[in-house]
């Protein structure tokens, strides 16, 4: 029982990331009819927003403190971050410590802009082209984005820690009446899970309760009819692309303490997120979320030693296996609408 | 005994009874029209004949064999060809290739790995296709890109593709839908010409009464998924049941 709870918890954070990326992919696919292979790159850009901000905040100047000597007997060089000198050492170091959550504020405008630029500059011209062309051009874009990031940040993963207040783990088991240290769960993963729930909730609320969201949902159901109503659907779809990009970016920012960002993390997550979208059902937002969590949890179950002892290697392939079985038995996915890309 | 025998066919979509106890018999070498108001179940019936839909109950016998449960390509191999509402052709291929493909299908069956002959070496097939094109007056367009032709020519090409297989039964799904009067007349002439030149059984689903009365020898009227009457065109014209179906009970 405790092992099961532990695996469910372990799967949740990865599942959250899958769900968020898949949500964005589905929004784009559902509204614009575009298969976006560069969506993983957006996730990665979000993660690197956190890296950039934490580096920016740590920018410092050097002063020579005559009163102290280093081990060579020379005056000690002291590095002070600008932030600390501006806001005072206490608040300054707190700001640096909180770089990752603060990066959310940077990520939202950056991702909205990136999404806007991508849609207006590139994707727009591919609405009427075949899916194969869309796949290929966004695949090219993903390579470009990945290489640009690699140039600026190097090829190695960059550890970006969570605020020190969240570094420890929560002993979840005690709360449920188990022995201590049986089910422990890192605080940040819990934060990530809650954060993703908030984002998912916000996206759904936005689509459900605003007129804008209503138009977008109508557009997902039947694009042509909405166009006939005289609503400038294109403009709204551009914004929708920006929002999808922002969701992917936010998923990336908050994921940095869990996985040190590297330039190919986007591609790694993209393949899996596609699988998630397919399992959930092309064009179904709840399906994407459900499948994201489901596959995350399944993956963590598959990596249990007990399971691996029975079927070796299952942890590596479980997601693909599920996708293949789903595609062959229920081509429209778990919650896909009938007739949407079923062939 | 007709070449096509439909007996007691039912088809439901959820709560909607699309076809209710349809019986239909199409005699060899006749042009049989199936007419009826919108939503009468004409297209559903057609789709049941070609294997796109499977009826909930009943039987569809073609040439003494059941077509139920067979795939569209198997049904075609039995001798049923179909013309679509909007012409379905191979747009990326040339006109002559469009006609050669059904020839290959007729000769070699549903699949054959003939990867080592060139198309040009298949003299019989080329000849057959050219004769067919000459028949429909399209020989001069033989090397044209099929997608670049006018709609009328596409329709003509599609007919040629069906006819070159010498089908025992040709199904036409609203062959003149959305056409201008002149094009419609051309299509009628084309079909009449085909009928004169060869022995062929045709089943036409049609909205346009002009087309129906110019071509059909037998007419079945469908309404709400059930055949009302089956008659010759002369007898259909003043038939009270037909009026009722088309004009509604209010006017009776």
């Amino acid at each position, binding site marked *: 029982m405790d092992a099961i709870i532990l695996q469910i918890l372990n799967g949740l954070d990865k599942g959250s990331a899958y769900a968020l990326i898949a949500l964005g992919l589905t929004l784009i696919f559902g509204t614009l009819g575009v*298969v976006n292979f560069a969506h993983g790159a957006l996730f990665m850009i979000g993660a690197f927003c956190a890296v950039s901000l934490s580096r920016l905040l740590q920018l410092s100047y050097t002063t020579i403190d005559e009163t102290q000597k280093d081990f060579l007997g020379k005056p000690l060089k002291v590095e002070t971050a600008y932030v600390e000198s501006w806001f005072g050492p206490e608040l300054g170091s707190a700001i640096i410590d909180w770089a990752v959550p603060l990066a959310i504020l940077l990520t939202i405008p950056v991702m909205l802009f990136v999404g806007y630029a991508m849609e207006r500059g*590139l994707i727009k011209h591919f609405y009427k082209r075949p*899916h*194969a*062309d869309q*796949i*290929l*051009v966004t695949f*090219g*874009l993903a*390579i*470009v984005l*990945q290489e*640009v990031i690699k*140039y600026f940040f190097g090829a190695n993963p960059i550890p970006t820690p969570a605020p020190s207040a969240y570094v420890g783990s929560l002993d979840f088991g005690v709360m449920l009446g188990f022995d201590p240290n049986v089910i422990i769960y890192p605080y940040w993963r819990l934060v990530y899970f809650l954060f993703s729930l908030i984002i998912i909730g916000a996206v759904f609320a936005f689509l459900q309760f605003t007129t804008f969201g209503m138009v977008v949902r109508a557009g997902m159901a039947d694009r042509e009819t909405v166009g006939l109503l005289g609503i400038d659907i294109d403009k709204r779809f551009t914004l929708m692309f920006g929002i999808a990009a922002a969701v992917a970016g936010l998923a990336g920012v908050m994921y940095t303490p869990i996985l040190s960002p590297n330039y190919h993390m986007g591609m790694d997550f993209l*393949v899996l997120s*596609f*699988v998630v979208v397919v399992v959930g059902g*092309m064009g179904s937002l709840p399906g994407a979320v459900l499948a994201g969590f489901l596959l995350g949890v399944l993956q963590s179950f598959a990596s249990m030693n007990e399971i691996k002892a029975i079927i070796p*290697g299952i942890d*590596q*392939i479980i997601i*693909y*296996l599920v*996708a*293949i079985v789903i*595609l*062959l038995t229920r081509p429209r996915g778990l919650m896909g609408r009938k007739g949407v*890309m079923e*062939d | 005994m007709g070449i096509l025998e439909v007996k007691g066919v039912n088809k439901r979509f959820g709560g909607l009874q699309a076809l209710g106890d349809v019986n239909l018999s199409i005699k060899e070498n006749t042009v049989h029209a199936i007419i009826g108001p919108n939503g009468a179940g004409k297209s559903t019936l057609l789709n049941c004949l*070609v294997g796109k839909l499977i009826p909930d109950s009943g039987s569809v016998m073609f040439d003494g064999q059941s077509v139920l449960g067979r*795939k*569209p*390509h*198997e049904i*075609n*191999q039995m001798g049923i*060809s179909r013309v*679509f509402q909007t012409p*379905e*052709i*191979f747009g990326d291929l040339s006109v002559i*290739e469009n006609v*050669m*493909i*059904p020839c*290959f*299908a007729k000769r070699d*069956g*549903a699949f054959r790995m*003939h*990867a080592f*002959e*060139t*198309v*040009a*070496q*298949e003299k019989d097939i080329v000849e057959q296709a050219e004769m067919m094109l000459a028949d429909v007056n399209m020989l001069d367009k033989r090397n044209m890109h099929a997608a670049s032709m006018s709609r009328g020519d596409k329709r003509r090409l599609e007919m040629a*593709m069906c006819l070159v*297989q010498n089908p025992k039964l040709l199904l036409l799904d609203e062959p003149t839908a959305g056409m201008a009067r002149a094009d419609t007349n051309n299509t009628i002439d084309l079909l009449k010409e085909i009928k004169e030149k060869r022995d062929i059984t045709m089943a036409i689903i049609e909205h346009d009464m002009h087309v129906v009365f110019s071509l059909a020898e037998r007419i079945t009227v469908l309404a709400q998924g059930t055949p009302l009457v089956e008659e010759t065109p002369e007898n259909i014209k003043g038939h009270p049941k037909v009026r009722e179906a088309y004009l509604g009970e209010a006017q009776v």
Partner: protein
Amino acid sequence: MFGLDKKDTKFLWIVIALTMLTPILLNPFPTDSGLAQFNAGYPALMQRFAIYGLMAIGFNILFGLTGYLSFGHAAFLGVGSYAAVWMFKLLSMNVIPAIILATVVAGLFALVIGYISLRRSGIYFSILTLAFAEMSYRLAYSVFTPITNGETGLQIKLDDPRVLDGAATDGALPVPGLFGLNMNSTYTVDLGAWSFDLNAGYYFCAVIAVLGFYMSLRIFRSPFGMMLRAVKSNQNRMNYTGLNTRPYTLAAFVISGMYAGLAGGLLAAMDPLAGAERMQWTASGEVVLMTILGGVGTLFGPIIGAGFIKYCENIFSKINENILHDWFSFLPDSLESVVVWFFARFVGEGWHLTLGVLFMLIVIFLPGGLVEGGQRIAAWYRNRGKSEDKATKQPAE
């Protein structure tokens, strides 16, 4: 000749001539001239031209003719490589059994994957093949380590059985060969300032690639090829014409998988090792790019695409900032450093960036690939000639 019409026979002869003369054509610059860095006529690179050309030809039979975009073809390449290396380990260093087994195993693998994937079309098909390839890649790293040797990659060893060859005598690792002709043996011709490497391995690959090209030419011209194009054009009409599309697409998938397996076998025959990274989906993407770049559905396009990519990969990776400084030394200093900085991003390590940019540019501006680009330029040139003719004639009228 060869069961082809006149035009195609000529075409085939041109391809044969080009492949046979490649070592000479690709070394146009004298060995000690500054431009020698643009020479591509060294064995390892030429082998890659032939091998990836072969793979792209095969991929084109699937993607070009039927329109099914597979994102998992690298898996067949990898499987072919593993099969070939195992043949070297167990049977003999002769390349013939190795490439035969590579082709057969890849074909069987493609049959299984194709049978499942082809039940869907469009984007679903792409994702299914992608999933299968990723799965193979992961499995090669984990469970199948006894067969694939995991991250180290599969290599030949001195104590491998090699039942046909007998024990190695001189203590050096044996080299793959063709009945005694070692694949790495090279005959260098020095002609004045030029030097040409005639390499056994390259010629072996070239002969196979030409055979592969001939096969694809036959398929393109055959009724089977016409059916495949019909699949791409209108599957609905095919079904109602009495044709079963699935065996056609499956046959195309298996054939193209066999081409990829053969290419993988050749890679191993040139350098007897195989690693899982060959199966990664970026590798699949590269094949797609080659085909697109050259021209999807054209006969010659994939070869041009493969050659172009492999050449650029090689040349671009070699260029470094010093060379760029040399080139742009005529510019004013401040401008030079900017220009050099900019171009340096695309060369050396930056080759992948170039690849990505190229990918986008081609898909956006030249969906028909280089072949179509060439045709467009030719057409433009002809039209320009005509309009000039008109312009000059008009006053006379």
